[in-house]
């Protein structure tokens, strides 16, 4: 019998009444669990970490980056004062603006619980106000236009132009890719408006997966979306939602597909399934896959071409929220790891982590800059260093994952370190997980 060892004491929410309750993370063997107790609704236990990589060794100590210009006062305590309040410990790396609640799919899993008939789209004036709120609170961070499905709006190019005109250099659209695959002209317009990158829902390389998760066969249209974005110079990040028993065995093939389409496909960003918004069931531990399991599956399913050692914890958000690896793709599509792991030994500054993360995403998730070599008219003047710069720009590839938190596994220590903030309709910045968190009956705490 493995010995139980407490890793940390934290706070969470009761999944039934959403009151704040004490929680603790403990390990038993190679697994970590969260235990919490609500005086009214009893005990809850959920797995949070499983695998060879130990949770204790993964943590990256950071000097916190408290918010300098809090928008909301501390009143009821975390997580009920989000806006951000002065208790928050990380700046915005990516701000999400939801440009519609409508969607042309009805997925089994949807954090926003979107559907075809839902609500009226926010006006351009409202969206401008949201952009301006981000600029005021967080400066020129990365923007992700989300929803709903943003491409149901014909004026999405206008929304992108508005953002670039306000000074946001990296604008990404979170999309299921259907319209991008079917409407090449629209893709062309998005590019002309200044779109840097798409965050493409891409759950696998088989239609069985799409049938189960999205209710439709979508592989063909996803491939068409990749081709159209490639043709018009928009960077693509493939984003699989990993659901045990559905697509966790497809990880290697997803990476192979991404490499086949590099450098237009800049990387794969895995999202282990979270249970908030619309979900098919209340999850058991078997319905979850944790970050170390994803890392081990990546190594196993790529036949060791990507080693777990090349993946590291983030310098921006809480270490337990994500991992990433940076690579250069050589001519034979072999990946050379360029992840710097040496940085994790000393105490780092979270503020610097946020700056680096913003630059990294902006650089590595955009389409490679074209013409950096063509600009040099005289081939004799192209130095070896220019060639290296060109190679780095063209051949970088990233593998990453982010584990969102739901009401079952919410750890407020992690939440306070969050750098992915949703801009609420009134312009407040709310950490992504808490904005989307729902109780056991599917009721949201923040989202309206």
């Amino acid at each position: 019998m493995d010995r139980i060892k407490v890793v940390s004491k934290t706070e969470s929410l009761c999944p039934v009444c959403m009151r704040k309750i004490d929680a603790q993370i403990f390990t038993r063997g190679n697994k970590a669990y969260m235990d919490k107790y609500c005086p009214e609704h009893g005990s809850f236990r959920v797995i949070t970490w499983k695998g060879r990589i130990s949770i204790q060794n993964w943590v990256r100590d950071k000097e916190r980056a408290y918010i300098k210009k809090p928008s909301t006062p501390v009143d009821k305590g975390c997580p009920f004062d989000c806006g951000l309040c002065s208790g928050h410990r990380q700046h915005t790396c990516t701000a999400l603006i939801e440009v519609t609640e409508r969607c042309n799919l009805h997925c089994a899993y949807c954090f926003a619980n979107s559907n075809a008939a839902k609500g009226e789209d926010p006006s351009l004036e409202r969206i401008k106000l949201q952009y301006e709120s981000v600029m005021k609170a967080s400066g020129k961070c990365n923007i992700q236009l989300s929803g709903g499905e943003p491409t149901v709006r014909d004026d999405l190019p206008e929304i992108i132009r508005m953002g670039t005109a306000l000074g946001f250099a990296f604008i990404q659209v979170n999309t299921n890719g259907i319209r991008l695959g079917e409407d090449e002209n629209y893709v062309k317009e998005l590019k002309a408006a200044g779109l840097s990158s798409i965050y493409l829902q891409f759950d696998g390389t088989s239609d069985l997966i799409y049938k189960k998760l999205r209710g439709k066969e979508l592989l063909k249209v996803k491939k068409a979306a990749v081709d159209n974005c490639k043709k018009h110079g928009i960077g693509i990040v493939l984003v699989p939602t990993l659901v045990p028993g559905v697509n966790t065995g497809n990880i290697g093939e997803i990476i192979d597909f991404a490499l086949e389409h590099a450098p237009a496909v800049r990387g794969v960003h895995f999202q282990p399934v979270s249970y908030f918004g619309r979900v098919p069931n209340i999850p058991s531990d078997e319905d979850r896959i944790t970050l170390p399991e994803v890392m081990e599956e990546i190594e196993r399913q790529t036949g060791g071409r990507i080693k777990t050692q090349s993946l590291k914890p983030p310098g921006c958000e809480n270490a337990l929220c994500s991992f990433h690896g940076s690579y250069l793709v050589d001519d034979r599509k072999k990946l050379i790891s360029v992840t710097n792991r040496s940085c994790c030994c000393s105490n780092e500054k979270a503020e610097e982590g946020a700056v680096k993360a913003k630059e990294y995403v902006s650089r590595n998730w955009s389409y490679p800059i074209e013409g950096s070599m063509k600009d040099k008219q005289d081939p004799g003047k192209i130095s070896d260093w220019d060639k290296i710069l060109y190679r780095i720009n063209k051949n970088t590839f990233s593998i990453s994952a982010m584990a969102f938190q739901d009401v079952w596994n919410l750890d407020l220590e992690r939440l306070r370190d969050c750098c992915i903030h949703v801009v609420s309709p009134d312009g407040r910045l709310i950490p992504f997980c808490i904005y989307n968190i729902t109780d056991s009956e599917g009721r949201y705490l923040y989202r309206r």
Partner: protein
Amino acid sequence: MNVDNKKDIPWLCDKCKKELVLHKVKVRYLEGNFEVELLKCPECNMVFIDEELATGKMLEVEKGLEDK
């Protein structure tokens, strides 16, 4: 230091007193291996990187590989 203005003046290795020559040199940064032409002492193989390069293209390369 402005190397351009002094490019006709040869660089000498302080230790060996040999004139530096342009040579392909292997550079490694974060597991990325690159080959570049740099001034090198033919005797002791010490490589010279001038300030313009260190704060220019070389820094750009470093930043291009910068992690988060």
